[in-house]
């Protein structure tokens, strides 16, 4: 089979002799191996797949039937003449085997006597930055492949920068295809020197450089190979077997466990389940629940095989606490004396991963550890050119773009800077409509801007305004399909409140669209901005003591929630005017449904744009059973009654 000598006698790999003679001893040894996750990065021709194929082959992770299939495939595809093409082993999907490129992240497994390895294999193509970031996010180490004939290329710089950005501390510069440059020492040293000059410039202080041939097997398992007697460092495998594991280092830091799930099988048991992000914990340790700040002590570390005496970073555990404190999914249980902070505004690096560009100001779901909150990203401060690392001006971030921007969350989240904790500093962004993962980010630090802007102390404050009008300010937010009857009902309510001596103001599409928002169209971003402005205006009016009525379709839960978060508790009253689409379409007062059905109106709610029904509105009006007059009467009665506590 080709001219690849299997390294059966090599001591670093599992010895068949031990398995044959003493399987018990072998299993014992394997039982106690550590786990290293690493990523390989390289361009299409750097021989990356061949190197991985070689690692699998040498560690006997390739079986005879797979090898037979591989030989047949190699001949059929003809990419390496009559020789075995290891790349075929790694390039899994039919589509990419035809194109000869790796298009996604693939995970491979092999082990040596000392460690088990999980390799994330990612492509080198520019358009696939997101795949490399994905593969690197769980890696302790990155192997950056360089073709010895070509040296350090733009791609090499890009891969190194991304690996460094994602926080990988161990970088291996694998100068591959040394066989094709005659194992020339000077060539190797020149490449290493070039790389060092570049790496120190981006903050990579240490890296390990190796001269390799994935195809011939030089310096893969043992070093130096016969061809490189001048090389004095470890083999690739020796190096991978000895670098420090990030999970082990995390044990040194303060204890944090994001709560995933509250386990309540009965009234006598309340356990908090989660993966320990950092540090260690023992029964009796004082802990603090963040963000509430309540303290308690750990009572037990519950496990099916019997309670544990200690849990460390990287373990999934269930804790019970000595006191009945409020704690639920999203909270972080932390060392009482050294808890993480909470904030709602951050600077972050954002990697965009979707075809549709990042829309500044739009609300996305942000998931960090076990917290999921609504968040928006401001216009980027700058975009980073991953090849030159230049800062570019940017209005949006397109697919595979990386930028630095401010992130605002609708409520404070518990975090740590990414360079201290991947678990509490890394986040993903989820589109609220498509539910796709559209971006990822790394928090740098919290922006305490709210503390820097000193609100002008108003002598006549909101309480004074409300007192003068002798009413509870509030926003009656009518939401529903076009033609559901929002404006009709809101008008009737306003008349009734006015008659009762209340100070009111009605904001609707007509009076807002023609003035304040006449610069906005009907794209998704504009519709979001429309609602944001209406929300801000409504808030100012409540400061002035008014009862504000708004009548907007406002189809997205996220935008309604955003307005709710602008207002004080109890001042946002969501009234869902619930009319089935068929009924609204039949009424079609303005003839809009007809136009939308004819394709003349785009993004029309209910037709080609969704309406997200309120999950828990303060009031729901079923217009198929309630007349506008009755509805208005019921709403007005509540405004004058239960919704207005005595001032």
């Amino acid at each position: 089979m080709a001219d690849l000598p299997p390294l059966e006698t090599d001591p670093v790999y599992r010895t068949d002799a031990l398995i044959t003679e003493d399987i018990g001893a072998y299993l014992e040894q394997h039982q106690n191996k550590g786990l290293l996750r690493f990523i390989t990065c390289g361009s299409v021709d750097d021989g990356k797949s061949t190197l991985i194929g070689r690692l699998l082959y040498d560690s006997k992770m390739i079986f005879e039937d797979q090898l037979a299939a591989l030989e047949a495939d190699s001949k059929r595809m003809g990419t390496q003449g009559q020789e075995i093409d290891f790349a075929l082993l790694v390039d899994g999907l039919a589509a990419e085997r035809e194109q000869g490129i790796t298009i996604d992240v693939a995970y491979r497994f092999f082990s040596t006597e000392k460690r088990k390895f999980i390799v994330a294999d990612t492509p080198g193509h520019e358009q696939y930055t997101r795949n490399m970031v994905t593969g690197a996010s769980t890696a302790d180490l990155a192997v950056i492949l360089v073709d010895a004939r070509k040296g350090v290329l733009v791609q090499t710089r890009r891969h190194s920068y991304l690996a460094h950005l994602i926080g990988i501390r161990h970088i291996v510069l694998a100068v591959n295809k040394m066989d094709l440059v005659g194992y020339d020492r000077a060539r190797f040293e020149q490449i290493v020197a070039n790389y060092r000059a570049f790496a120190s410039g981006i903050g990579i202080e240490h890296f390990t450089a190796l001269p390799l041939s994935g195809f011939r097997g030089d310096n893969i398992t043992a070093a130096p190979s016969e061809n490189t007697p001048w090389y004095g460092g470890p083999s690739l495998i020796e190096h991978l077997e000895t670098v420090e594991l990030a999970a082990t280092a995390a044990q040194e830091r303060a204890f944090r466990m994001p709560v995933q799930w509250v386990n309540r099988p009965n009234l006598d048991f309340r356990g908090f389940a989660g993966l320990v992000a950092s540090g260690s914990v023992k029964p009796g340790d004082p802990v603090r629940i963040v963000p509430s700040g309540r303290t308690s002590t750990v009572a037990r570390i519950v496990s099916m095989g019997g309670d544990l005496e200690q849990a460390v970073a990287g373990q999934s555990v269930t804790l019970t606490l000595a006191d009945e404190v409020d704690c639920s999914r999203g909270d972080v249980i932390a060392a009482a004396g050294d808890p993480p902070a909470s904030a709602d505004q951050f600077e972050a690096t954002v990697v965009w991963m979707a075809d549709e560009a990042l829309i500044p100001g739009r609300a996305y779901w942000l998931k960090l550890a076990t917290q999921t909150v609504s968040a928006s990203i401001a216009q980027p401060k700058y975009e980073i050119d991953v090849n030159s690392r230049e800062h570019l001006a940017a209005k949006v971030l397109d697919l595979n773009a990386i930028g630095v921007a401010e992130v605002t969350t609708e409520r404070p989240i518990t975090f740590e800077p990414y360079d201290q904790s991947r678990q509490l500093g890394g986040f993903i962004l989820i589109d609220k409509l498509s539910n796709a993962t559209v971006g990822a980010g790394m928090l740098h630090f919290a922006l305490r801007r709210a503390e820097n802007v000193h609100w002008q102390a108003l002598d006549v404050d909101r309480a004074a305004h409300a007192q003068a009008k002798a009413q509870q300010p509030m926003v009656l937010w009518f939401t529903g399909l076009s033609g559901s009857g929002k404006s009709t009902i809101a008008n009737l309510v306003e008349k009734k409140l006015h008659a009762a001596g209340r100070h009111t103001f009605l904001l609707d599409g007509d009076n807002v669209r023609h003035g304040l928002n006449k610069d906005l169209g009907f794209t998704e971003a504009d519709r979001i901005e429309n609602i944001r402005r209406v929300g801000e205006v409504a808030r100012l009016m409540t400061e002035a003591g008014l009862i504000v009525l708004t009548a907007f379709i406002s189809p997205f839960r996220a935008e309604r929630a955003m307005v709710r978060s602008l207002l004080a508790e109890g001042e946002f009253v969501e009234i869902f005017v619930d009319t089935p689409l068929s009924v609204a379409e039949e009424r079609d007062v303005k003839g809009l449904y007809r136009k939308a059905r004819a394709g003349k109106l785009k993004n029309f709610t209910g037709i080609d744009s969704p309406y997200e029904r309120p999950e828990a509105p303060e009031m729901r009006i079923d217009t198929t059973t309630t007349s506008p007059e009755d509805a208005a009467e019921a709403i007005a009665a509540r405004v004058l009654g239960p919704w207005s506590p005595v001032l």
Partner: protein
Amino acid sequence: MRPLTHLQRLEAESIHILREVVAEAQRPVMLYSVGKDSAVMLHLARRAFYPAPPPFPLLHVDTTWKFQAMYALRDRAAHEAGMKLLVHRNPEALERGINPFDHGPLHTDMWKTQGLKQALDLHGFDAAFGGARRDEEKSRAKERIFSFRTASHGWDPKRQRPELWNLYNARKNRGESIRVFPLSNWTELDIWQYIMAEQIEIVRLYIAAERPTVERDGLLLMVDDNRFTLQPGEEVRMRSIRFRTLGCYPLTGAVESRAASLPEVVQEMLLTTTSERQGRAIDKDEGGAGMEKKKQEGYF
């Protein structure tokens, strides 16, 4: 400092995944095939939610052609875990008498692929745990831990969501469902070691014993019940055999073996030179792209 072993880290990762799904999905279910991977997955679920039983049911998509020993263990394991066991048999396949002897690939399609879709739709499950591992097969190596299926249960490898750190996005669109693979990063050896370390009960068929066998089409089949009809020239012979993978008995090839204990089985596995799925007829359809194609059609 106490470095965790690879098994401890794999266990922690799997438990984390199981808990994320329970926290974020509406109606999760665990697909339970009674094989060794299912046994490990069930054990991890019990650990994840202890002292509560796992807060979801087990679902067995039955073909009526599994080994008898599998049915026995299935019922006992569900009972011991305190979980509800749902068994689904495709009524159309039952009515048409679809069987592996007469119907070839149609048997797998109707009982397993269609049966699974039916069961998930019938109960409205939005997330289903499966025991697949990335080391099993090439297209699995590229599949996400949270793998989305369209309303018709298709898989589109080009539209997979990026999965970063240990942050999983379990949000789905109307009609979509998720297959979740908590054992994605385990290898076959890891599975065996965990079974030994945790003393997890598995079907005895994985361990060698004298069993009635017939050689057919290059596979060594076990005669598990009287529905097995002999073809001319075939004879039933007792051989010491074990199985590396378990499915429908007429489709699952045994290997001749004397490994009568788990360490011996692992010993043979490590010294062996053919991959695990070799004993299954199903992967050989359509050349190398067989599994990828099946998954696009909705096979687990």
